[in-house]
């Protein structure tokens, strides 16, 4: 058996990422107050919002089913009041859709819930001509509907669209339009991690009803991301948020030497939902405990004192120091060094203990844009807006290079 009281490599990424949000907001209480959280009409009421122009009204907390393989979790989620369940063809090779379909059928609740699924276009399918691409997308959707035991879904997403070109791909676009026309989906959507570029294109396309976007506390300072999502909402597109706790909820707390308190998860979720342009979030819980914890947020978005304390805890900033790879520091450097790449090399070398990867990352930089350019500076003066101590990390890298740690 593996030791449970340790971090795995994923934890190195997601835990600091979750905490980096706290780091980002330090000293910025204005962000906490920038968009005052909605108050529930009754203390025990479930907050609901309308999804863009779709007319669908959903509780602010929904369920991302991707991590759940226990039907009881869906049943409990329904009992508590969750009415939107998000799955995808790719989750557990369709087994996730099968589970969702069976539970909803057993509950007899199809007309009480909004079901979304997603179809991705991957690999060689991206190069298919419009007609073949459309046919492939429709055929895959038909399989999803069979697994779900449903004649339609409420939202069908083009899944994981990672570029403007992919968003413009006529095959999936024609398929989505046809499936909507045939009543196999009520609304069509797009999911992406490339928020600024792809969502800007989605707004222009005027085809999509819904977007599923990554939104969490690590983006507190990113006006480009927040502004783009808000523009989408203002144009009538429904906004659903994913990765709201930057992976925190689904990570095993027992793996942390000093577990994150439950308050961190509710605080991070409330921060996302404090943006009124977000209709609902789809946290991916896999335990009853996390389900109850996350859904408690739907009753009241006001921060508790403990949550405020968590969000404002300055110790997280010093400890997390997570580079978000925003690249803003590049312009701050007089030599325009690729500082974010150096920070990634530092993470590989010192957090992962992987000098091979650190060396390869450093070697990928063109001459004059890497550590070589830092040689003539005694100390780095780049200031990171997210509290990363750039100077110290570059000093570490220089020391490692002097010790031949990056020798091939």
């Amino acid at each position, binding site marked *: *058996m*593996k030791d449970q*009281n*340790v*971090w*795995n*490599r*994923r*934890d*190195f990424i997601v*835990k*600091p990422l979750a905490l980096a949000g706290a780091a980002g907001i330090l000293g910025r209480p204005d962000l906490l107050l920038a968009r005052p959280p909605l108050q529930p009409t009754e203390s025990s009421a479930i907050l609901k919002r309308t999804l863009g122009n779709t007319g669908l009204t959903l509780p602010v907390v929904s369920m*991302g089913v*991707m991590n*759940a*393989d*226990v039907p*009881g*979790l869906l049943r*409990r989620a329904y*009992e508590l009041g969750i009415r939107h369940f998000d799955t*995808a063809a*790719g*989750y*557990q*090779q369709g*087994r996730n859709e*099968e589970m969702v379909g069976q539970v909803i059928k057993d509950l007899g609740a199809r007309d009480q819930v909004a079901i979304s699924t997603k179809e*991705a276009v991957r*690999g*060689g399918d991206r190069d298919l001509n419009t007609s073949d691409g459309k046919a492939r997308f429709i055929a895959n959707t038909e399989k999803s509907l069979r697994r779900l035991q449903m004649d339609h879904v409420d939202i069908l997403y083009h899944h*994981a669209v*990672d570029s403007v070109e992919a968003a413009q791909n006529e095959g999936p676009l024609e398929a989505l339009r046809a499936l909507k026309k045939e009543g196999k989906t009520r609304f069509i959507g797009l*999911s992406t991690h490339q928020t600024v570029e792809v969502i800007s294109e989605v707004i222009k396309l005027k085809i999509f009803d819904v977007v599923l976007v990554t939104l969490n506390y690590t983006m507190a300072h990113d006006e480009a991301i927040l502004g783009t999502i808000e523009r989408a909402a203002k144009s009538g597109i429904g906004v659903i948020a*994913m990765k709201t706790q930057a992976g925190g909820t*689904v990570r*095993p*707390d*027992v793996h942390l*030497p*000093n577990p994150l308190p439950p308050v961190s998860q509710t605080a991070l979720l409330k921060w996302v939902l404090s943006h009124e342009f977000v209709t609902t979030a789809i946290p*991916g819980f*896999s*335990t*009853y405990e996390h*389900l109850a914890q996350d859904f408690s947020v739907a009753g009241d978005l006001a921060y508790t004192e403990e949550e405020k304390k968590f969000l404002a805890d300055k*110790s997280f900033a*010093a*400890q997390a120091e997570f580079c978000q790879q925003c690249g803003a520091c590049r312009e701050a450097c007089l030599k325009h060094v690729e500082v974010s790449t150096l920070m990634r090399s530092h993470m590989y070398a*010192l957090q992962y*203990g*992987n*000098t*091979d*990867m650190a060396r390869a990352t450093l070697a990928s930089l063109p001459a004059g844009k890497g550590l070589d350019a830092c040689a003539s500076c005694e100390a780095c003066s780049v200031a990171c807006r997210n509290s990363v101590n750039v100077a110290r990390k570059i000093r*570490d890298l220089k020391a*490692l290079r002097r*010790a*031949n*740690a990056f020798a091939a």
Partner: protein
Amino acid sequence: MAFCLRRARWLIVGLVAAACFSPLNPPSGHGASRPSLSEGAQKHLLSFIAEPLPNHAAVQRAPSFYSPDSLYDFMDGGADIYLLYDFQVLLHQDFKSGPADVSVDIFDMGSPEDAFGMYAAERSPNYRFLPIGIEAYRSQGVLNFLQDRYYVKLAGSGTGSDDLLDRFARLLSTRIAGVRSFPSLLEKLPQEHRVRHAEQFSRKDPLGHSFLSPAYIVSYKQGAAESKIVVSVAKDPAEANARREALAKYFSETGKCEAVPSFGAGALKASNSFEGSVIAVARGRYLIVLVHPSSDAAALLDQTARVLR
């Protein structure tokens, strides 16, 4: 050179130690020493798909590798469950042989248990199973199999791809070698009425309860009645008892829970509206949980306890 490397190593140790001042940093040990995406690891994975290949299949583009922090780029939200099973490295490579295309994904899950857990999470008892590796199955242009610490997923399209998938799978199985059996605990559990190809290993959150981790799960079917045996593996008897207490507490809060001495010392019976009914008993370092217990639950519990002794 050796001195330099030693010096570098100590410098890294020093810097890591300095960075580990906070509770947010990982402790040294397992997490810090996990296998990384080194050149050695890449070469090892590439050796599985080195030439000669079936039907003179030709590489279509450069291989790609994904680590835990980049797996999202490959499969988006589908990555989450792989990470729950401590996914280590993925090698992805596309091949072509005449009109047939094959893509090969080799997931190094770090241990045979986790490879089994991930494989089992994606398989369906309804698939067509094949004797390749520990187990393989075919489904709609896909041939997946499990062997050693690897979960191998092959997908094909075009004329002749079924045959090509089969040849690739057999070749990879030969090259991977290593462990070719299911986890031994699963083999010990009662065989009668067992649903074949439905066994699972849950690294985290079995039955939706983190305190039951890790656990093995076997399904049984008698007529229309379906039940499960969940064996939660604790460090020692005290921890197994603590898990039983945690389960009792949870059901007491969400439904009902009572002692059932007829099922043995410390046995409990519990139910709620969303999980149904369970019977649980701690034996040694195991907590045995029967989910939706059948009429012969007492005998099944006794048999399970005996084989685990």
